[in-house]
């Protein structure tokens, strides 16, 4: 296909480099420097998609981030990305893109039937259309909406691209490289400030790329190029293109998305696809410019209707004519600039100006060029379905209420200018109290909440001379505050054309007997009639109107629609715009890839991985690992074809009959030191601690102030003022914070210091009837007899030259010890235990066997201490001291906590002694009771008892104390199971606890 709409010369594209691409399966050519939009327009393609609700044909409306509807599905290097604006996507060799929102194709779209059934899709269609009948929702409405709506399809494949996050601090962040951005960056940089200048487009210069002005005897573009190359040389300046500052958050933190690779066919090696910058700036200068606003008229969404500024940009930057018979419809002087550009390239435009007899320099120039200008004229409606074919036009009365006789003008595009709307999104996001400027009929930033200043067109200043002057000065003033330097910058002289006043006219009335759709929000298909309905139905707040009609929502955030929507509401309500107010602009200003937000935190990088110093041994011995918080722990050691069930049974059984060893390095460990350590523990734990002798350990339970069990573990008195506390793996960090809270804030008079020692010690639990024999061989010089090292005793020992701590504590309920050595010696300790343990048939055991052992013993763990249970519920009330106060004690008097039928831990055995009970199942009295079946309790942990060789579970059961011997049912709707069970004691093995003391 030839590029029949590309002019011979001109534009900023590289005509020496042809680029081929595909759109909806058809091959085209463009040039390096094109966007997908400009390349399609060069090829005469205007139809890019279908609209969101009515599936009306959609073309290009803007030329950049302002584009509300030219959204495509992009394919690049085997990946696909939805929601890409064709006006922002740079062309690269091999680019492929498809239309979205059209099914089965953009030319024949089944959803377009919505357009004729629009009675079903008025304002509030989200809320009322698909509500009834309810049974239609899943089968008919939802699949239909899913297929017909949306802005593309996300890939279901793993994203191979890499995304980076970067944190940066600067003195001034300047968002936008138009005249105000360049001038303020330049003077601040010259003053020595650390400056970041961000431009969302590939080219710097903003409006200077398309305006016909002179700065310091150069063209605007040449001046911009000069400033940029000077800034790039300065070490205190970061200049970034393709970088959108899209969010302004608290305390002057802004987030910017840098598109590093999207303009290339393939991401370069070691490069990310996108880089997300978190920038903390001392001062923020918003130089985001302005967006031309549309004038509302009939069928104003027809492909070929576009912003006049976009038509000018396509011509001046890309050398593309958006039409060969253009109609320019304007209420201000900007339209004339576009008309003049057309005329210069041999195309005859017609200008319709809603004003009567406007006078200005640029209008004179247009007249002198012989351009056909019709004053007091408006476009009533565009004609044509997939492309503008003509326009119905008419004269309009001075009061803008009465149309003259309708005439038809043949044209192939309508370039609209309804004056300019400052881009105040960032200022508004920062909390700026924006104000309405009557002069320009738009909101501008008002009182700043954070250190933010808006300059140039974004501040409603539309003359270049004033923009440059204030921007140079502001850059200097703000940087001077920070660097204390005062570099004099001479402000260049400016040549620009003077503008006359715009017409406060924004919506063409409907001619009698016509019901054209007149769109306000092109992305969300919100027409004038929708807002009228919302107001008729009683919606008043602009925030409510927004949600009911979807005006200004979604990815567009009202860039082109916002003000016209407000004008309409204020007109119907007979109010002025400022009293209607505007809706909140939400970040992101423009869509940001989820990948960029996630950054590197994907897959195994989503959280840190902690491994014990014995990890390699586990790997070498076929351990199957499980995530325990951020730790990796062996779940079981697989032998041959063993299943998890078989292996954990073997390992647990070996502990009960011989001896097993388990890596318990992950257990939380906290050193508690100081003369008041005993007193502190006495307040933290529920039981008594003042009389624990040196060389002894004690089991302790700690509560939260609300009486709920926080954690449990043993704490050992190592020496007079030194205690070694252990916590569960999961609660280690919370317990440390908890202790610090009380020491720093509540009882600062206590002379105690706490520090985490989890990573300083490697731990091995040696458990089983033969553990003492093994221990004796490991520590031949230490008396480990029942008298020398009794239950809950502690000694230090010498493990073949390595200093070790030996605790006689047990989680398995067997005779057991825990040996700790400094982490570096962890592997040495483990190797010795395995080597010497061989003669005692030692086997390592994982967390699954560990659970089995503790469950059948009735020892509580995380699944019972789940943040909802008190000591009584866990049969731990024996540990509650009556003599002293402790954290949470007062809460235990709450009525619910002392109720007669309070929940309590019990054991659960299936009557058939065969069926395993799913964890999380509910206990009920009657399996056949009607729903909702009253729940009496839940299964907290399940195992296969190796002692009894049948399933056994723990449960937290209402009135558990009196339920022993009862027959109940376990129900698991998830697993579709109903199991008759008997309630037994939670101590299923060795209820008297004789083994640990043996």
């Amino acid at each position, binding site marked *: 296909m030839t590029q029949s709409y590309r002019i011979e010369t001109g534009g900023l594209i590289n005509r020496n480099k042809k680029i081929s691409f595909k759109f909806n399966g058809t091959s085209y050519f463009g040039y390096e420097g094109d966007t997908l939009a400009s390349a399609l327009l060069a090829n005469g393609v205007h139809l890019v998609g279908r609209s969101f609700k009515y599936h009306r044909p959609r073309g290009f409306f803007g030329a950049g981030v302002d584009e509300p509807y030219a959204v495509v599905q992009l394919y690049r290097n085997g990946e696909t990305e939805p929601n890409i604006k064709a006006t922002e996507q740079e062309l690269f060799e091999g680019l492929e893109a498809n239309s979205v929102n059209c099914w089965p194709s953009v030319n024949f779209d089944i959803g377009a039937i919505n357009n004729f059934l629009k009675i079903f899709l008025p304002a509030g269609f989200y809320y009322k259309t698909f509500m009834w009948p309810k049974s239609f929702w899943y089968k008919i409405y939802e699949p239909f909406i899913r297929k017909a709506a949306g802005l593309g399809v996300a890939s279901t494949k793993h994203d191979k691209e890499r995304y980076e996050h970067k944190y940066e601090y600067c003195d001034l962040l300047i968002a936008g490289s138009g005249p105000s951005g360049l001038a303020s960056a330049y003077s601040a940089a010259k003053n020595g400030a650390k400056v970041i200048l961000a431009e969302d487009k590939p080219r710097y210069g903003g409006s200077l790329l398309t305006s016909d002005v002179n700065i310091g005897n150069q063209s605007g573009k040449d001046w911009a190029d000069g400033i940029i190359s000077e800034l790039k040389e300065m070490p205190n300046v970061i200049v970034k293109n393709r970088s959108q500052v899209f969010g302004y*958050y*608290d*305390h*002057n*933190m802004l987030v910017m998305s840098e598109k590093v690779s999207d303009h290339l066919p393939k991401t370069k090696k070691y490069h990310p696809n996108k880089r997300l910058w*978190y920038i*903390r700036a001392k001062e923020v200068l918003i130089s985001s410019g302005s967006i031309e606003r549309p004038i509302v008229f009939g069928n104003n969404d027809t492909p070929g209707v576009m912003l006049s500024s976009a038509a000018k940009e396509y011509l001046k930057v890309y050398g593309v004519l958006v039409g060969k018979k253009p109609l320019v419809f304007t209420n201000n002087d900007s339209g004339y600039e576009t008309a003049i550009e057309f005329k210069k390239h041999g195309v005859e435009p017609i200008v319709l100006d809603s004003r009567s007899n406007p006078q200005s320099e640029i209008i004179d120039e247009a007249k002198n060029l012989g351009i056909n200008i019709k004053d007091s004229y408006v476009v009533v409606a565009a004609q044509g379905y997939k492309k503008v074919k003509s326009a119905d036009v008419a004269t309009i009365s001075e009061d803008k209420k009465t149309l003259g006789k309708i005439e038809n003008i043949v044209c192939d595009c309508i370039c609209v200018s309804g004056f300019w709307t400052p881009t105040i999104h960032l200022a508004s996001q920062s*909390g700026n109290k924006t104000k309405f400027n009557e002069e320009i009929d738009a909101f501008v930033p008002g009182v700043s*909440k954070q250190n933010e200043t808006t300059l140039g067109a974004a501040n409603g200043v539309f003359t270049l001379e004033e923009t440059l002057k204030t921007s140079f000065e502001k850059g200097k003033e703000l940087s001077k505050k920070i660097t204390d330097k005062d570099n004099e910058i001479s402000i260049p002289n400016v040549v620009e054309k003077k503008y006359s006043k715009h017409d406060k006219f924004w919506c063409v009335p409907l001619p009698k007997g016509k019901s054209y759709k007149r769109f306000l929000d092109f992305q969300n298909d919100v027409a004038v009639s929708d807002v009228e309905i919302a107001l008729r139905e009683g919606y008043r707040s602009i925030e409510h109107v927004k949600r009911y009609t979807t005006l200004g929502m979604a990815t567009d955030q009202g860039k082109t629609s916002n003000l016209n929507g407000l004008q309409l509401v204020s007109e119907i309500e007979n109010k002025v715009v400022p009293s209607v107010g505007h809706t909140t602009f939400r970040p992101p200003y423009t869509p940001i890839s989820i990948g960029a937000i996630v950054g590197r935190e994907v897959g195994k990088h989503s959280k840190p991985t902690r491994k014990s110093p014995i990890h390699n041994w586990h790997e070498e011995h076929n351990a199957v690992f499980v995530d325990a918080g951020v730790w990796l722990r062996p779940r079981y050691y697989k032998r041959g074809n063993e299943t998890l069930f078989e292996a954990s049974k073997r390992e647990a059984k070996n502990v009960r009959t011989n001896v097993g060893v388990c890596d318990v390095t992950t257990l939380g460990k906290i050193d508690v030191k100081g003369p008041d350590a005993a007193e502190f523990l006495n*307040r933290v734990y529920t039981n008594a601690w003042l009389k624990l002798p040196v060389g002894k350990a004690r089991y302790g339970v700690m509560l939260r*102030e*609300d009486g709920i069990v926080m954690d449990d573990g043993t704490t050992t008195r190592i020496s007079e003022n030194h205690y070694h506390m252990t916590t569960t793996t999961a609660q280690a960090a919370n317990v440390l*914070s908890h202790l*610090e*809270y009380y020491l*720093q*804030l*509540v009882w*600062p008079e206590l002379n105690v210091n706490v520090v985490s020692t989890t990573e300083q010690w490697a731990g091995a639990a040696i458990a089983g009837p033969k553990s003492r024999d093994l221990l004796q061989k490991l520590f031949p010089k230490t008396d480990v007899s029942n008298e020398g090292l009794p239950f809950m005793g502690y000694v230090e020992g010498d493990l073949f030259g390595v200093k070790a701590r030996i605790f006689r504590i047990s989680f398995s309920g067997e005779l057991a010890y825990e040996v700790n050595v400094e982490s570096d010696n962890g592997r040495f300790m483990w190797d010795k235990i395995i080597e010497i343990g061989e003669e005692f048939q030692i086997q390592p055991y994982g967390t699954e066997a560990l659970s089995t052992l503790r469950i059948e013993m009735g020892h509580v763990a995380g699944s019972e201490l789940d943040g909802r249970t008190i000591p009584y519920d866990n049969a731990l009330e024996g540990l509650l001291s009556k003599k*002293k*106060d402790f954290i949470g004690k*007062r*809460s235990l*008097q709450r009525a619910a906590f002392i109720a007669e039928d309070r929940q309590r831990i019990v054991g659960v055995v299936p009557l058939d002694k065969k069926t395993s009970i799913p964890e999380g199942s509910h206990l009920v009295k009657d399996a056949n009771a009607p729903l909702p079946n009253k729940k009496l309790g839940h299964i907290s942990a399940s195992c296969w008892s190796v002692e009894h060789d049948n399933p056994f579970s723990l449960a937290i059961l209402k009135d558990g104390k009196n339920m022993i011997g009862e027959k109940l049912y376990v129900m698991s709707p998830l697993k579709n199971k109903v199991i008759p069970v008997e309630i037994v004691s939670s101590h299923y093995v060795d209820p008297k606890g004789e083994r640990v003391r043996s």
Partner: protein
Amino acid sequence: MLHIKCPHCGMRSQNEFSYGGDATVKRPELNKEVTDQEWDNFVYNRVSPRGKHLELWQHLSGCRQWIKVERDTATHEIFRTYKANEEIA
């Protein structure tokens, strides 16, 4: 993301801190008889002011000190930060 000045370490990003609630709540003294109402006020009942709020934060990924932060809950403006034992002006 807030920017919080730790009185021990200086300006740090919010993600180094964890929030600890109302700093004006005082724990009843140990071994002291308290009514149900007093205890509920300590454990559960909190005001949720719009505006100035003195609150606790812990500099978790820093010096691990609990600090007091005077913050506007509506605007997020931070007026002052205090050490745990510092007199509140």
